[in-house]
């Protein structure tokens, strides 16, 4: 099993961002979380990596279970150690890439694995292999600021892949990229899917979603309105999703 989420809820102050969210994702699937801005899809994605903690609910991911109860905060130290474990199995790619500008591309890739005890030589070999796979073999010693947006996003994907995650999360990976570059990301995601990694992608771009999804979850106002296989793109079951697809 890949990911199972049960009755997750989250509020920021008085504003409830997510209401009673439950879904499950099989291993190796590429699931798209679709919805307009403010639907709660990014918050939901960030919860899968515990960058946000739910107010209540259960989260099963990469064979680890986290339970949250209302009004009860998990003890910070144990939670963060376990959260740290989780994040080594669940990678994340951000909309704004968040590469570390003071480090070369190679150093960006090597930082996490070396800190986690992998030898420098091994991390370096792996980094060079991944850069080649991402079509950036000559950028190892480049500074991130000298790369284009698309190149930076590919470096960010390579950086997340350095830990060989079981699950890879993408938060609006193409929102800052032009359509031609978006297709490069599509190719990479489809190649990764062929390699068997479970992916969850947040986007509001329907075309991009169609090209990568094997499953789709459509959210509106913090609730799941429709979910199913990629066939839902051609045969939506709810009028809300149908009208969203026509935008």
């Amino acid at each position, binding site marked *: 099993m890949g990911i199972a989420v049960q009755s997750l809820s989250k509020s920021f102050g008085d504003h409830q961002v997510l209401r009673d969210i439950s879904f499950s994702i099989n291993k190796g699937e590429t699931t798209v979380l679709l919805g307009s801005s403010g639907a709660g899809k990014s918050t939901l994605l960030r919860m899968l*990596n515990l960058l946000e903690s739910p107010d209540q609910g259960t989260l099963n991911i990469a064979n680890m279970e986290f339970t949250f109860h209302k009004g009860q905060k998990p003890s910070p130290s144990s939670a963060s150690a376990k959260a740290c474990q989780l994040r*080594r199995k669940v990678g*994340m790619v951000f909309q704004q890439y*968040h590469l570390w500008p*003071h480090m*070369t591309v190679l150093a960006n890739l090597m930082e*996490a694995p070396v800190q*986690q005890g992998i030898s420098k030589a091994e991390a370096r070999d792996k980094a060079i292999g991944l850069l080649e796979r991402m079509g950036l*073999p000559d950028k190892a010693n480049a500074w991130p600021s000298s790369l284009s947006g698309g190149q930076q996003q590919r470096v960010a994907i390579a950086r997340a892949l350095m830990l060989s995650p079981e699950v890879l999360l993408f938060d609006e990976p193409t929102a800052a990229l032009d359509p031609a570059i978006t297709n490069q990301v599509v190719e990479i995601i489809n190649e990764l899917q062929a390699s068997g990694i479970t992916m969850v992608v947040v986007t509001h771009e329907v075309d991009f979603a169609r090209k990568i999804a094997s499953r789709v979850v459509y959210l509106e106002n913090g609730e799941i309105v429709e979910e199913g296989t990629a066939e839902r793109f051609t045969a939506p079951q709810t009028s809300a999703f149908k009208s969203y697809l026509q935008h």
Partner: protein
Amino acid sequence: MGLTALFAEATVMTLGLALSSLALGLFMAIAFSLAELSRFKPLALATSTVVAILRGLPEILVVFFIYFGSTHAIFLLTDEFIEVSPFIAGTIALSLIYSAYASQTLRGAFMAVPKGQAEAAVALGISRFHCFFRIILPQTWRHALPGLGNQWLVLLKDTALVALIGVHDLLLQAKMTAASTYEPFTWYGIAALIYLAITLVSQNILERMKSRSNRHLTSSHSTTEPPVEKAVSHSEATA
């Protein structure tokens, strides 16, 4: 001892005082700035108060207070008369003054590092401690360096204040030589030239540090790291 040797010794004293105050001051400045940014409000408030007091007092008063005040305080507490060495008292006073100003520069610099930088590290399972020293602090450095460099020059010249509590520094040496030779123009002039030389060298070093801290924005590739070897090296390919 010749005058040259005396002046050399006094210069070393001034530099030693300035550099040890810088080291201690930077350490305290990082602590102050983090305390002020702390989510634990009483700590943030207490630190802000200390910084406000230090910035509100004349430097010479802080020096006197630490030197004479600490001896008095120890006497009141233990009934013993223990004299604090002028060098140590001077270092503490100067580093407190430096840290009060530098902490404000650092606080601004910490806030200038985008939140996403730490988030990316957390998302990769990097520990908070490691993230602070490897991801956040180096980026803070770039933003803080111009301000810290300025405050270093101020600190360097503030060392002259500790001549008044008897540290045998460059100013005290110039004063003594001027008095004994009746040639104040010459000897204060020489002291001035030495201070100027130190600041000019400092500025040069600071410039280099600044361009190093900006190298990732001004060049496209790192020149300090060896180039990555391709899978097939040229010698093999042409052999």
